[in-house]
């Protein structure tokens, strides 16, 4: 997994609440058996005026000029500013894969869909929850300042505005540790393999029906 330590990047303000994972990556693109290449279909139904199917050449598509990520001023944005409950809905990890593949590294909003929030951390994407007034403030600044950038420091857990004001955010210590170091969870968990085996052995004796193999 890619490390996340600090980021200084252009911000794309995406002023919608309840953006669901079906909108982030529509289902026709879930049929891939790979993890990469989803970025070109990120927000497909909003980003393009024509209907998208897997395997199309993006150059042949009709981009929707009104869609935020298609506007030249936001080209290269790595921070997406959003409203409440971004990433609600399905558990598809294709959503963070698509965001990451598109080039986004951090999301800022008031709240996120629970499974989506989890999935982001597994893919080097940092979802940041800030209070509503602070998010409102960022939207306000971004609207009035072309080329609006933010600095994010995961170590100090701060988002630093261009005017120098630092907004602090919460992140679980374990998730932070994994993200800062680019560690993959599986390797970390397997350090406890003995404990897992021990637990399993006791469970097998106490509740053998959980281990039934009689179909």
């Amino acid at each position, binding site marked *: 997994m890619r490390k996340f330590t600090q980021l200084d990047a252009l911000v794309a303000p995406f002023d919608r*609440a309840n953006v669901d994972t079906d909108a982030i990556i529509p289902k026709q693109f879930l049929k891939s058996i*790979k993890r990469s290449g989803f970025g070109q279909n990120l927000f497909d139904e909003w980003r393009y005026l024509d209907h998208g199917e897997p395997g199309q050449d993006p150059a042949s598509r009709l981009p929707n000029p009104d869609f935020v990520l298609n506007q030249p001023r936001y080209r290269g944005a790595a921070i997406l500013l959003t409203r409440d409950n971004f990433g609600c809905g399905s558990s598809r990890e294709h959503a963070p894969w698509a965001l990451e593949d598109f080039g986004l590294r951090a999301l800022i909003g008031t709240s996120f869909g629970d499974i989506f929030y989890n999935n982001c951390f597994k893919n080097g994407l940092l979802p940041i929850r800030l209070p509503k007034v602070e998010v409102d403030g960022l939207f306000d600044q971004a609207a009035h300042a072309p080329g609006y950038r933010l600095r994010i420091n995961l170590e100090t857990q701060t988002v630093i505005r261009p005017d120098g004001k630092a907004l602090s955010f919460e992140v679980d210590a*374990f998730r932070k540790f994994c993200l800062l170091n680019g560690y993959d969870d599986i390797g970390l968990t397997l350090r406890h393999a003995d404990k897992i085996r021990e637990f399993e052995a006791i469970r097998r004796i106490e509740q053998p*029906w959980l281990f039934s193999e*009689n179909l």
Partner: protein
Amino acid sequence: MPKTLYDKLWEDHLIRQEEDGTALLYIDRHLVHEVTSPQAFEGLKLAARRPWRVGSIVATADHNTPTKGWERGIEGIADETSRLQLQTLDANIREYGALAYFPFRDPRQGIVHVIGPEQGATLPGMTVVCGDSHTSTHGAFACLAHGIGTSEVEHVLATQCLLQKKSKSMSVEINGRLGRGVSAKDLALALIGKIGTAGGTGFAVEFSGSAVRGLSMEGRMTLCNMAIEAGARAGMVAVDDTTIDYLKGRPLAPQGSQWDRAVTVWRKLKSDPGACFDAVVVLDAGQIGPQVTWGTSPEMVTGIEGAVPAPEDFADPVTAEGVVRALQYMGLTPRTPMTAINIDKVFIGSCTNSRIEDLRAAAAVVRGRRVAASVKLALVVPGSGPVKRQAEAEGLDKIFLAAGFEWREPGCSMCLAMNDDRLEPGERCASTSNRNFEGRQGNGGRTHLVSPQMAAAAAIAGHFADVRVLL
């Protein structure tokens, strides 16, 4: 200290905990389907790892499978990538193994959340995971059931554990009696209408109260299924006689002396008297009528007597803006009575409402009536092979067919339209599924979530209608 059911399930699976509360939970049951597993198996292979315990895995193909033309086999699936996903699942299960596998066309194949309980693969006290958000369904059996992402699928395959932080707990107590024509689906929609789609975020929800105790297992599954639409990580219901009666004799349920031992353990799976919840919501089932959604989020819902709202009804500007967009997408005008909204298609199915009881409820409305001529397609898609055969044994298929419904093979079907069953742009559907997001049932499609009875009533009337008049 008195414990909640959630506390008990959590503690019973806790292997260790980091200082920040990140816990390693042991996973008893891992349900696998074709869409979210390929990348996980690929990751496993790349890291030269093996599944920790294949005996925990129950796999099926459901999301992509066609609902007709089964006689043509996998070659009959026109979409190449759908076929590839089914073949990839086959290859992975062949290589690694599973406790049970119900591939495409197996007589026991079906929607992963229908077959788990049906086969007795979901048992009280288990942790159940699946790369699918509606895994919350299994909480109806007093399980701790989480939907997980593909990286977590790989993590569970490799370690038999899941990294989790404990959620806060919410009690949703639904008292009173359900009115005629009102079902668990209406309770779920009314709850989401009340607390919002983010209302349960960060919570594990326990459903209780006399109305919940009065529900069958099917009804409880519908309720827990929709917990995720309220934003909750998990939904659950305590064990009682209804739970135990449902499980007795299921293929994977314990038998003989093991059954008796298991039942003794299961009986303890309920919140202690006086257990403390972080949030409490109380609903009166008697006050809830049949529900219909009007927007593009399950919280955009009203009773059948209601009307489409106007943006100015909402004080918060972001919400009002969302309503403007939703009405535009849905092609609806404020103040239109719900009963004046005509529909093009009807879908009875999905892991929310495709079990035998759902089909019985819909058939009771349909019996002796005809689907309105203006309805282009009315589909019934049973949740599994066994549900389909049971319904046929009861003659329900005949009732649906005589009325003009199509009777299909099991699968997810038009719930998410990954196969050929879908809405065309602008088409309006009365659907028993769980999500009315933009494009969910097909690009440009307009979904209204309802119960099976209400979907049946809409099919007959050609527009949304109060099923209570038909009963």
